[in-house]
């Protein structure tokens, strides 16, 4: 049991890493893309739109971290 737990923790640490929000951001953007593609909305600008979504999601995840750890009084 402890081996399985350790094995699971290893892969969690390896894939998700220090900040789960980044993994969540990628999954959310992939989900948005999946919804567009499944719905037949596939234009040449879809990849560009998804690229911008990734940049926005990354920025939000980073800013949440920075805000959460802002020193008191600053």
């Amino acid at each position, binding site marked *: 049991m402890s081996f399985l737990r350790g094995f699971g923790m290893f892969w969690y640490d*390896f894939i998700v890493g*220090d900040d789960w929000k980044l993994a969540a951001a990628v999954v959310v953007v*992939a989900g948005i893309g999946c919804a567009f593609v*499944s719905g037949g909305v596939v234009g040449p600008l879809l990849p560009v739109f998804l690229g911008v979504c*990734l940049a926005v999601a990354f920025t939000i995840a980073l800013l949440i971290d920075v805000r959460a*750890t802002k020193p008191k009084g600053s």
Partner: protein
Amino acid sequence: MTMGTGADWALAVAVFFAAVVEVVEATTIVMAMGMTRSWRSAIVGTLTALVGLVIFTAVAGYALVNWLPEAALQLAIGGLLLIFGLQWLRKAILRSSGRKGLHDEAEIFAKQSAAARSADSRSMFGLDYFAFVVSLKGVFLEGVEVVFIVITFGLNAHNMPVAVTASVVAAVIVLVVAVAAHGPLTRVPENTLKYGVAVLLSTFGSFWLVEGLGIFRTGRSPLGWPGGNIALIVVLAGWLVLAQVLTRALRVPDTHGPALAAAGSGTVAAEEVNR
């Protein structure tokens, strides 16, 4: 092995520098164990980890190539590569902006050496248990990251020999320099390298992830970026500009020290500073 196109060179450069970063980290751990505990145990631990990595590579590579269609492969490993790249990019931005301590091989070497000196001297099969396990774990963990990057880049770029060669060359160069220096590789500009590799991983990861979403449409063919592979340059520039903007926007004055270290709480401060 052919190195004809710009994509091949980009592949080689990305894998080479990613491998340099990881091998430097693994080498620091092994050297600390070897110099303070037992070279024999540290080397046996390293070789055991390398055997494990070969098995892992064979299994993972076979599974990815034989079980997944191209678009699904791009989606899966593009997504993983992107998560990887964004984690590195996050750390690079926080370090460059002064919000997280810089990765320092000398400091890590000192910490590992101190831990090795204070650990019990337990033996197993004539080997120093602590040096063996720490070396094995360090090399395997850093090695899995290299293997993952090599498999990802090699399969997606359809040029596994270039990816493998780039990583092997990186490992050989780092090991030769480490043996010559006989100490931690403090002169390797690891933070700068990580910044660059993070941008490259994020670029290829986002490019392939979006292409891989084609698995959900009729025919399951990859989505196409406007301009094809040329779009990689635009995506690269986009991540680079965003990273620079965020670094400048989040920069804290030097006089106050790393802000997050002072905060004492929160996700970033709670992390190991030099991870």
